[in-house]
């Protein structure tokens, strides 16, 4: 099992919000999360994301989980 704090997952909310011309506050309202928590997620400081949160974000942004989360390949 890998160490719990080490991962290469990148959250690409920034790009998605920009492409849809949506603010983080607006997304927080639509998803039902606090701005603080959504900000933690956007800045890559979250340790994990619930399926329910991911579903709500994908629904609000009309995208797939793979659009929100990507794995960075470090050489």
């Amino acid at each position, binding site marked *: 099992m890998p160490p719990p704090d080490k991962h290469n997952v990148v959250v690409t909310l920034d790009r998605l919000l920009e492409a849809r011309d949506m603010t983080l506050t607006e997304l927080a309202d639509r998803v039902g999360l606090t701005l603080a928590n959504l900000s933690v997620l956007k800045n890559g400081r979250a*340790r994990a*994301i619930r399926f329910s*949160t991911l579903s709500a974000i994908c629904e609000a942004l009309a995208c797939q989980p793979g659009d929100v989360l990507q794995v960075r390949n470090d050489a």
Partner: protein
Amino acid sequence: MNTSAGRGWLNAAATVLGIGLALLLAATAVMAVQAARGAPVSFPLSPEAAFGTEAGPTLLPGVELARDATVTVRLPDPAAAQSAWSVLLWLPSTLLAGAAVTLVLLAVVRARRGDPFGGGVVTIMRTLGVVLLVGGPLVQLLTGVGSYRLAGTVLGRGADFAPAFTLDGPIVGVCVLALAEVIRHGQRLREELDEVI
């Protein structure tokens, strides 16, 4: 869960514990003053110690005292040393009870003011566990010393040192320590969940 109901219960518990602690302190102060003034002293003795192994109270044939029977000795005008030794019969257990109530009160107050699963509550519970684990037998030892010394002042032939050890304190102490570890485990799990969005 209704948090206001939980908080109300904590308020009630804090009030009851606070009143209990105040009464305990007041009673301790009164008893200490009475002991210092040379108030009459009473303490239990086993029938064997009181009457000797051969002599005893005059009872009808076929009647005997129960093995756990005690005789209460009363000293209407105790000497200073007797008053001092008599303090050992009640002060250690009172201090232990006071320490336990104080620690529980502290935990309740912390839970009421802020985070019931904060580090402070675990520390308090661990302290309470150790206090009961060590304090229980210590109180019984000191009470035994007090009884032994008091009995020595009233029995011409000397008394046996036989403190009565029970497992009440250590058992409760271990249980409290176990509960503290349960709460600590819950803290760790919650710390993990804190960063889950």
